[in-house]
C-alpha cells in the first residue's frame, strides 16, 4: 500500500474574515487512504479549513495541494474532492436516486451504466429500494446516507465530511460511526472528517489534528493525542485532566529531572522539558483514570493520602473528587467499579489513598499554557 503518500497538503494556509483570523498559517499533510479528523471547539476554524479544501472558500495566503496539484484558481467543480455537508444539503426537488446521480452528469455514462452505479451505491449505504423516495420522506440517518452516497458515487480522491453525525441522536450516531469507519476502509477513499466531538474523533480516526483559534495545536494518532498531549489545551480538550504545580529541583545523572510536585513530594521523571533547569516551575498533569483509589497504602511509585470530597456513581464507574494536602483543588478520579461493593466505601469524608505510576504523569511548560489557552 502506498500509505505514506501525501494526498492533501496545506502550507501556511491563512484565511481572514474582516478582523477575525479564521485560519492562521495552518500547515498539514493528509496521507492517501487515511481517516483524518480535524477536532476543535466551534469557531476554531475547522469548517473553514474544510471549505478551503473543497474550494468553496478561498485562502488569503498559503497554498493547497491535492494529489500534488496546486489548487489555486481551481473552482470547486473541478476539484477531486466531494463534501458531505453539515445539514446534508440534499436537493429537495429531487428523489433519492436523482440526488445520488446528480454529480454523474459529466461522467459520460450511458443511462444503464449510470443507473447501475447509483443502485450499487444505494446498496452500499443501505438505501436499497428507497431510490424513489423524496427527501422529505427520509429520516435523519437516511438523509445522511443520501449525502454520503451522492458524494461517494463520484469516487473522489478525498471525501470531506463536515460534522456529518452532529444532527443524529446518540444511538444512531454511534452506529453511524462504526458504519462510516467500515465504509471508509472498504472504499479506501481518504476521509477528512471535521468534528467537535472528541470521542467520535478518537474512535474513528487514523490521525487527528486538534485546532483552536485558527491554529493547529497537535497532529497525532488517537492514542498519542490522549496519552501524550503536547500542551495543556489539547490535554483538557481531549478527556479530563488534573493539573498540579511542579518545580524542578535538579537534573538527574540519567538526563531526567527531579521535580517537587504539589501534594506528591519529589518525583523523578525520565524526560526533560525544554530549557529545564533547577527552579523552573511548570505544570504536572494526570488523567482521572490513571489514579487508583484504595483504602490501604499501596507500593506504587507515588501514593498519597486523601479525603473523598464528593462522589457520583455512574454504574460502570464512579467519579470521585479527592482532596490531598498541598493541592488547592481536589483531584478528579474515575474508578472502575470492578469490586461490586467497592463504590459503597467511597463516600464523602472517607480516607483513601491515591496511587499512580510515574508513566501516568505528564509535564507541560508554563508558557505553553498561556499560548494554548482556549
Amino acid at each position, binding site marked *: 500500500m502506498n500509505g505514506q503518500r501525501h494526498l492533501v497538503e496545506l502550507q501556511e494556509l491563512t484565511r481572514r474574515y474582516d478582523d477575525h483570523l479564521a485560519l492562521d498559517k495552518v500547515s498539514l499533510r493528509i496521507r492517501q487512504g487515511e481517516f483524518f479528523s480535524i477536532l476543535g471547539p466551534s469557531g476554531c476554524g475547522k469548517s473553514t479549513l474544510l471549505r478551503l479544501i473543497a474550494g468553496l472558500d478561498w485562502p488569503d495566503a498559503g497554498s493547497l495541494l491535492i494529489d500534488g496539484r496546486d489548487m489555486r484558481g481551481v473552482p470547486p467543480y473541478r476539484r477531486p474532492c466531494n463534501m458531505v455537508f453539515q445539514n446534508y*444539503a440534499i436537493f429537495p426537488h429531487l428523489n433519492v436516486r436523482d440526488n445520488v446521480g446528480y454529480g454523474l452528469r459529466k461522467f459520460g455514462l450511458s443511462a444503464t451504466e449510470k443507473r447501475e452505479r447509483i443502485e450499487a451505491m444505494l446498496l452500499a449505504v443501505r438505501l436499497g429500494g428507497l431510490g424513489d423516495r423524496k427527501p422529505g420522506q427520509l429520516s435523519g440517518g437516511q438523509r445522511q446516507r443520501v449525502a454520503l452516497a451522492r458524494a461517494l458515487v463520484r469516487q473522489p480522491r478525498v471525501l470531506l465530511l463536515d460534522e456529518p453525525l452532529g444532527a443524529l441522536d446518540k444511538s444512531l450516531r454511534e452506529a453511524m460511526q462504526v458504519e462510516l469507519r467500515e465504509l471508509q476502509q472498504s472504499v479506501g477513499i481518504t476521509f477528512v472528517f471535521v468534528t467537535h466531538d472528541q470521542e467520535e474523533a478518537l474512535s474513528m480516526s487514523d490521525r487527528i489534528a486538534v485546532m483552536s483559534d485558527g491554529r493547529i495545536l497537535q497532529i497525532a494518532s488517537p492514542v498519542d493525542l490522549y496519552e501524550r498531549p503536547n500542551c495543556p489545551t489539547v490535554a483538557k480538550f481531549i478527556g479530563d485532566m488534573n493539573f498540579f504545580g511542579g518545580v524542578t529541583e535538579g537534573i538527574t545523572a540519567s538526563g531526567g529531572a527531579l521535580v517537587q510536585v504539589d501534594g506528591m513530594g519529589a518525583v523523578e521523571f525520565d524526560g526533560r522539558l525544554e530549557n529545564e533547569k533547577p527552579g523552573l516551575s511548570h505544570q504536572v498533569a494526570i488523567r482521572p483514570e490513571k489514579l487508583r483509589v484504595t483504602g490501604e497504602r499501596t507500593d506504587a511509585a507515588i501514593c498519597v493520602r486523601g479525603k473523598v470530597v464528593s462522589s457520583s456513581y455512574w454504574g460502570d464507574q464512579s467519579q470521585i473528587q479527592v482532596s490531598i494536602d498541598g493541592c488547592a483543588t481536589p483531584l478528579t478520579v474515575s474508578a472502575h467499579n470492578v469490586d461490586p461493593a467497592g463504590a459503597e466505601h467511597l463516600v464523602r469524608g472517607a480516607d483513601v489513598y491515591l496511587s499512580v505510576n510515574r508513566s501516568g504523569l505528564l509535564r507541560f511548560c508554563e508558557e505553553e499554557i498561556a499560548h494554548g489557552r482556549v
Partner: protein
Amino acid sequence: MTARRGRRLRQVFSSGYLVYLYLPIVILPIFSFNDSFYISFPLQAFTTRWYEELASDPSIIAALASSLQIAAATALISTFFGVLTARALTRYRLRYQKSMLAAIMLPIVIPELILGVSLLVALNQVGLGLGKWAVVAGHTLICFPFAVAILLSRFEGFDLALEEASLDLGESPWQTFWRVVFPLALPGIVASVLLTFTISFDEFLIAFFLSASEPTLPVYLWGQLRFPKKLPSALALGSLIIVASFIVVTIAELMRRRRTGWGTK
C-alpha cells in the same frame, strides 16, 4: 354573553363588507345577460347577444390582442429582472441594501397618474414614440416591485448549501442555477408572472396616456362608455375580464403557497 355579541358584531361587519365589496362586481355579469340597453331593474329577458356582439367586433379583438401582448411582455420582463434583483438581494450582502430595496419599491406608492404623465413627456422627448412598447415600459415600471416582492419571499431562506453542494458535485454556477435554483424558485417565478400579467392587463391610467392608436382593453372599454348602445357589450367584456383575472390570481396564489418540501434542516 359579551363574547357572543362580539362574534355577532364581527359577522355583521364582515358580511356587510363582503356585500359592499362584491355586489357591484356581481352587477356586471348580471346585466351582461340582460336583454336591454339600459342598466336598470327590473331585468328583462336572458340573452347572450352582447357576448356575440363582442365576438364580432374587430376593434375589441384588436384591443384584447394588444392587452394580452403587453401583459405577456410586461410579465416576462419584470419577472426576469425580478429574479435577478431578488437573487442579488438575498445572495449577497450588498452595501445600501435597505435603500436599494426602498428605491425598488417606490413605484408602488407613486401615483400612476404622475407616472403616466411623466412617461408621456419623457418618451416624447426622447422620440421613442407611443404605442404598445411604451405601455410595456410603463407597466414594467409598476410591475417590477411586485415581482421583486414575490420573488424575495421565495429566495429568502434559500439554503446556500444547496448551491454549494451542486458546485461541489461538479456543476458550474450556470448549470447550478438551472438544476437547483431555477426549479426551486419556479413556483415563485410562475406566481410573479401571473400577478404581473394581471396588473398589466387591468391597468388603465398609464395605458391611457401611452397607448396612442393601439388601445388596450381597459382603454377601449372606457372609450365605449360614450355610446350607450355599446354599454351592455362593455359589461359582457368586463365580466369576462373579471372571470379571467380571478382564475389567474387564484393560480398565482396557489403557486406561491406551494411548498416543494424543502427544508433540509
